[in-house]
């Protein structure tokens, strides 16, 4: 159990509270909200117990769902990106990931943006698809995914830069 450090647990609760109290109320242009709480999944330490990681992601999504009355859409999206994260890590970081010694603070900025944006886009697409739940409104799903993803990406990069403790 010592594999999840204290840092991750603090991050878990702080991100949920920030999401439901601040970011859910931004409503830029009426309906565009960022969802930077998935930073927890994006920045979770890599060499870890995968089952535990998927379960934690599920709980993260479920908490946000309870607060925002959305059934299980966040939980479903979070579980999915937690499950496919290794594949995306391999795609974005290549050899570094193969050696299992990846530290997000020390990675190239460009690689990190690619990694963030792929996972954010997948998460938002699943979330809005389930939320709207109507295939005839697929254009609306894509539109919301595009706008919110951009917004989330900006916030995620800003937050990860602000709170990174780079040791050089």
């Amino acid at each position, binding site marked *: 159990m010592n594999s999840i450090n204290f840092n991750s647990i603090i991050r878990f609760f702080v991100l949920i509270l920030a999401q439901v109290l601040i970011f859910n109320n931004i409503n830029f242009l009426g309906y565009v909200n960022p969802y930077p709480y998935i930073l927890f999944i994006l920045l979770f330490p890599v060499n870890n117990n*995968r089952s535990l990681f998927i379960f934690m992601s599920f709980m993260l999504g*479920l908490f946000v769902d309870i607060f925002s009355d959305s059934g299980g859409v966040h939980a479903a999206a979070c579980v999915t990106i937690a499950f496919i994260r290794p594949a995306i890590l391999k795609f974005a970081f290549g050899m570094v990931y193969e050696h299992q010694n990846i530290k997000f603070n020390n990675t190239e900025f460009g690689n990190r943006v690619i990694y963030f944006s792929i996972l954010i886009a997948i998460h938002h697409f699943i979330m809005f698809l389930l939320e709207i*739940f109507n295939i005839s409104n697929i254009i609306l799903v894509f539109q919301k995914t595009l706008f919110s993803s951009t917004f989330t990406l900006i916030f995620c990069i800003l937050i990860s830069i602000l709170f990174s403790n780079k040791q050089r």
Partner: protein
Amino acid sequence: MQQIINFVIRNKTFLLFLLLFGVSLALTIQSHSYHKSKFINSANFLTGGIYEGASGISNYFDLKEQNEILLEENTRLRSIKLNTANSIATDEFVIDSSSYNGRYKINNAKIINNNYSSSKNYLTINKGEKNGIKEDLGVITSKGIVGIIDNTSNGYARVLSILNTKSKINAQLKASNHIGTLEWNGKSSPTTVQLTDIIKFAPVKKGDTIVTGGESSIFPQGIPIGTIDSFVLDITGDTYTIEVKLFNDMTNLSHVYILENLDTKEIKQLENPTDE
């Protein structure tokens, strides 16, 4: 047997993923069906408490605006009261002529969480079962309707907003008695909703007022909703679909009134006499 166990161990991540994804999918589908979602909602002790704490801070920011809304409403009510014919003579003896002949009990509450950006929006209020709030009570402000209570806990309740694709409310034109259904398509901005099923013979004019209809036992007849923004004839050519511009600013709500129809039980009994 050994092989099955091996298979489970080898694929335990994938199986866990499938299980959790299935659970969340089930919760999603349950929240989309018309029946109330019982487990995952913001009207519980933990979330209600956190939202109430946060709104305790944020409600200082719009005190001035809320005061003005209250003053406006007081002015209107006072002018109604002074201009009613029998107000001077029988003030003491009438039970309460302004509260819809005593058929409605009015409660007040405060919104502690307001959503309007998704396609299924809910609000959370700071009154619950211990204040006599039940499911299926109507929620209004001084300007117009807000929604219907759909889930309660001891201290909090959740309101199904009119900005929710599941919401269906009986409404009518103020000028004539043609009734229709007030819905929201989930796409238009939070200032407009749609009124459907108004028959094509109805005198629909841009700028006319839409009010609640008398057919539901939740809202009394004549609660204001909004004005007609634009209207089109349906594909079938029989009914109008009307874009209604709301009187309420759904993005900026603070204090609401909760209407309880004291006759609901009687009406329900009459409508389903065999339902034991």
